[in-house]
């Protein structure tokens, strides 16, 4: 590889995120040694797991120069359906009193399938009716929220079977099951992005949709698949968050879409489309969660943390645009 003169500006643009992460870890661990305790790191991984699954779904949409605002509400729907299907048989407030709790894998399949259907509808509007992703997913966000409110009657869901909540508390090779689920999803997504035609098509659409059509890429079908896959991931994330919190409501996952979009951008998924990797989402989510944890450990007012997160989003998107836009 060629040796080039060191350019601080370029270094900061490319490595800034990693640098911020390292500085955060160092400062916080000096001020509060507990920050690096195994318990806290495990907690951090648990928090990251569901958010990574959401970010991996959204990353596909952002790579095609789109976005998905319906993620949060889909998470709520996924969490509520999973919760309803996995309530204890003897729980007094059971949603379906006569229905026994289902098998975990079956519930995951049902939740992902239902949310994928909504995602496919969103994709259909984007692909066939040229509704901008921002509007299409905004509309779906409202529809899914409304349907979930009607379905659950806005009642919080609880009383889960032990084998569901155990996903967050029990471990395999010292790592909680929820983290393993996130790892499996990351590997599957990496494979889709890098080793399949679908992945190639996704990057092509992000780079130039018009040219993609010319090359024979099935643009419309690919767009539908991208949004359906993303929605299936949101459903799974809802399932995971339900297991972690031991309950769900229609507001589960509220606002998570913005965090996921920001995390993707921080990690290197470009809002101008075509650029981004699975590692971008992993890195972005890690930085975001580290930042939140670090602010807590540093004793920053919980409400002020939102301001810090907003500032980070501003910086990340400005840097992203700076990367690909040149001055005349």
């Amino acid at each position, binding site marked *: *590889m*060629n040796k*080039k*003169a*060191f*350019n601080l*500006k*370029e270094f900061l643009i*490319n*490595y800034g995120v990693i640098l911020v992460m390292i500085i955060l870890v160092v400062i916080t661990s000096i001020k509060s040694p507990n920050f690096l305790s195994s318990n806290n790191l495990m907690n951090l991984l648990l928090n990251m797991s569901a958010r990574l699954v959401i970010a991996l779904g959204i990353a596909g949409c*952002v790579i*095609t*120069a*789109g*976005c998905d605002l319906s993620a949060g509400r889909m998470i709520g729907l996924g969490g509520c359906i999973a919760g309803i299907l996995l309530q204890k048989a003897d729980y007094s407030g059971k949603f379906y009193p006569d229905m026994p709790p289902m098998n975990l894998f079956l519930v995951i399949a049902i939740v992902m399938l239902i949310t994928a259907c909504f995602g496919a509808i969103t994709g259909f509007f984007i692909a066939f009716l040229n509704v*901008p*992703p*921002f509007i299409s997913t905004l509309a779906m966000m409202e529809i899914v929220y409304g349907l979930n409110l009607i379905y659950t009657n806005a009642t919080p869901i609880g009383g889960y079977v032990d084998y569901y909540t155990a996903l967050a508390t029990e471990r395999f090779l010292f790592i909680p099951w929820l983290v393993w689920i996130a790892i499996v999803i990351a590997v599957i997504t990496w494979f889709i992005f*890098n080793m399949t*035609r679908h992945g*190639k098509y996704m*990057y*092509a659409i*992000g*780079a*130039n*949709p*018009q*040219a*993609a059509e*010319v*090359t*024979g*890429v099935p643009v419309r079908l690919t767009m539908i698949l991208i949004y359906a896959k993303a929605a299936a991931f949101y459903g799974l994330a809802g399932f995971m968050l339900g297991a972690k919190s031991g309950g769900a409501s229609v507001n589960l996952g509220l606002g998570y879409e913005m965090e996921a979009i920001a995390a993707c951008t921080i990690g*290197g998924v*470009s*809002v*101008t*489309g*075509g*650029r*981004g*990797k699975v*590692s*971008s989402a992993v890195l972005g989510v890690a930085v975001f969660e580290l930042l939140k944890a670090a602010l807590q450990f540093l004793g920053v007012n919980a409400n002020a943390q939102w301001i810090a997160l907003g500032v980070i989003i501003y910086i990340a998107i400005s840097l992203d*645009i700076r990367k*690909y*836009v*040149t*001055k*005349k």
Partner: protein
Amino acid sequence: MNYQCGDGWTEYYRETDPEKRKLLFKQMSDVYDDGANELRHRLYEKRHTDSAHPGKMVDKGVLEIMLMSVNDSLIYRLSPFTARSIRRSMTDLGIDEVCDDNDMSASAVYWEIRNAARRYFENCKGPQYARKWFGMVASSDDEKLEKTAYDVWTMTVRIPEIYGMTEEMRIFSDAVRDEFTEMSEEARASYMRQVRQAKGKL
């Protein structure tokens, strides 16, 4: 390096519609034969045939150029998978057909890639290209040209240098850069601006 287009083949390489090129090839191969016609035909077939969907007209040339332009995401990590995918793209673009850098095979591959680049750049002027803010805002013509110039610089300078594949990608780099800079004066100026600003970006 001087890439010869071949007597009378200019029109064939200027045309970007695959169906029209097919007809032009039939007409010209009867009249002009510089020994590279068989290769030209092979390159055309390689570019426009999809083994998974026989009969469907595709353009792998344009597709590979597009994918090459986005290959620089997280380039600083020098992923071995990216290097492998770049080599696969080069093969799909016909680089493996080159026998000797100075013979007609190199020229035929160069001109075929230029043709693919030409078709790609034609599609970089539409309203769907380089949209900003999650696809909500269209770019101006100037912005589109700057973005294309950035992508051309990425494909032809940044990626080859960072991955140490300058020699391997030379014909590809020459073809894409030449096609872009000869497109118009603005394009040439925009590319030169990228080169100037790129100092230290590699």
